[in-house]
């Protein structure tokens, strides 16, 4: 084989290779602000649960490669009704407000829903938050809240706990395809309660 021709072909290949590397790098790292159609705020891409699709089936609890799951339940305080007895907190609401703390049967098997009095005495407003150290993402509280209550509780996939697997084990099993890759947003306003105020699309 002609040595010179071989070298020439190799040089051509090197040019093509360098161009491919440079082109790919430019395409990926160049600032894409010029594309006006893309209006979403820039943020890291993360796995997240689309609450419009989520049915709180509880598969997130076991499917995640992390144990306990990277999914946690949260309560959106902007939507919560601050009830005396909470559907996400108690399995049976027919308890007098004095006995809720002591005798109320909890929905959460790990007692992760925290009830705290805010104002108005024992029949006034109460705050409900979820202890993320206890929560295992079974979704029982969120399911009841969404079925019977004010739909303020939902499940989030916490980016700080998520490993960011390429092939998310939750996305694989999710029956509603609710786990999707999207920009990172403040977790609790993903349901778009602020849409009414600011007009921002989540």
């Amino acid at each position: 084989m002609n040595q010179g021709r071989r070298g020439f072909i190799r040089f051509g290949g090197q040019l093509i290779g360098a161009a491919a590397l440079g082109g790919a790098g430019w395409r990926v790292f160049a600032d894409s602000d010029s594309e006006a159609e893309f209006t979403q705020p820039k943020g890291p891409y993360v796995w997240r649960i689309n609450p419009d699709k989520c049915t709180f089936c509880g598969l997130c609890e076991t499917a995640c490669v992390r144990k306990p799951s990277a999914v946690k339940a949260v309560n959106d305080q902007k939507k919560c009704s601050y009830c005396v007895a909470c559907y996400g907190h108690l399995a049976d609401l027919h308890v007098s407000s004095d006995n809720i703390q002591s005798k109320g049967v909890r929905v959460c098997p790990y007692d992760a829903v925290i009830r705290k009095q805010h104002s108005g005495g024992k029949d006034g407003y109460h705050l409900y938050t979820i202890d993320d150290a206890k929560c295992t993402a079974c979704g029982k509280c969120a399911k009841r809240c969404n079925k019977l209550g004010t739909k303020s509780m939902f499940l989030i996939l916490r980016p700080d706990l998520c490993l960011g697997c390429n092939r998310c084990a939750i996305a694989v099993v999710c029956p509603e395809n609710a786990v999707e890759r999207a920009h990172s947003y403040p977790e609790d306003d993903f349901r778009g309660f602020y849409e009414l105020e600011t007009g921002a699309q989540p």
Partner: protein
Amino acid sequence: MKRLFLLVVVLVFACMQWLAAAGTAEAPPCFKIPSQEDISSNEGIASYREQWRPRQYFPESDHWIAADIAMLAAILLAGGVMVWRHAPFSRFWPLPATTLLYFGVIRGGCICPVGSVANMTIGLRHPEMIGVSTGVMFLLPLVAAFVMGRIFCVAGCPLGAFQDLLGGGRARRIPALPHTLLSGLPWIVLVVTTWLALRGACYFVCLLDPYKTAFFWGYGWLQRLIHMTHGGLVEPGILRVGDLTAWAILLAAVALGIRVYRPFCRFVCPYGVLLGMFSMIAIKRRHIEQSQCVKCGRCEKQCPVQAIMRDAQTNEYGISSYRCIQCNRCSSICRKDGIG
């Protein structure tokens, strides 16, 4: 008596209906759910609601991304120096060990350059969907291959390091024809991966990777240790990663790896195709000095990836840059110092 009995039966049925109704449909609560007007008219709770801000959780700090890139660059650089100086293969182990420890255990094995093939395909179409770390993870080993060949395979790949760790000692050569046919598989995987990634269907390489179970497992144990000493939010149990199938596939892959050197790298890995292509046009390629070569064939026997072949016509040995993973076994064993 009969009438009384009937009455009791009817009553019981009525009660049962009532009980059943109570069981299925939740009876309305004995308190009033505050309406939105109630809440906004009550000053205390309204101001609480107004001031409450949702908490934002951030994926991970940029320091980790910088550390990943620095680590990969350092390993590739060290590997490059060792390949350049023809360091014996026995001195290579710190590099794959570091890779296994850092990318495998500390970082959980994901994202790795092999899986990033799918991410990069998506990134080429939608640049906003790929992060800096993923892009660099994909491009850096290719740049290294463009300079010196597949240094990444021997030094920087957590999957390769895992396969080197378990098995490879008693690897067998595969006859030429099946080997050629099997070497075509990565091309198919590459095409399917890019195709499915563009369709948005799945990350096909990650589906095929049997070793990630082990990485997640190691990562889980590390997190557990951290939790035991420092505490923290996620306290992993003994990580039951994946299911029995995943573990069975991992075991099968490891068992195969005892007799076949790096089965995943040679017959599955689509990233190896890209690395191999860049190695073919690399600036410095491994080659055999024909003036030195005495055609003893020791390098051909030693080469674990069957990259060294004898030309049937000229009887000369040659190295396939596409297959060579720069492990330096041949240059260690050559008595004539004939491998440049």
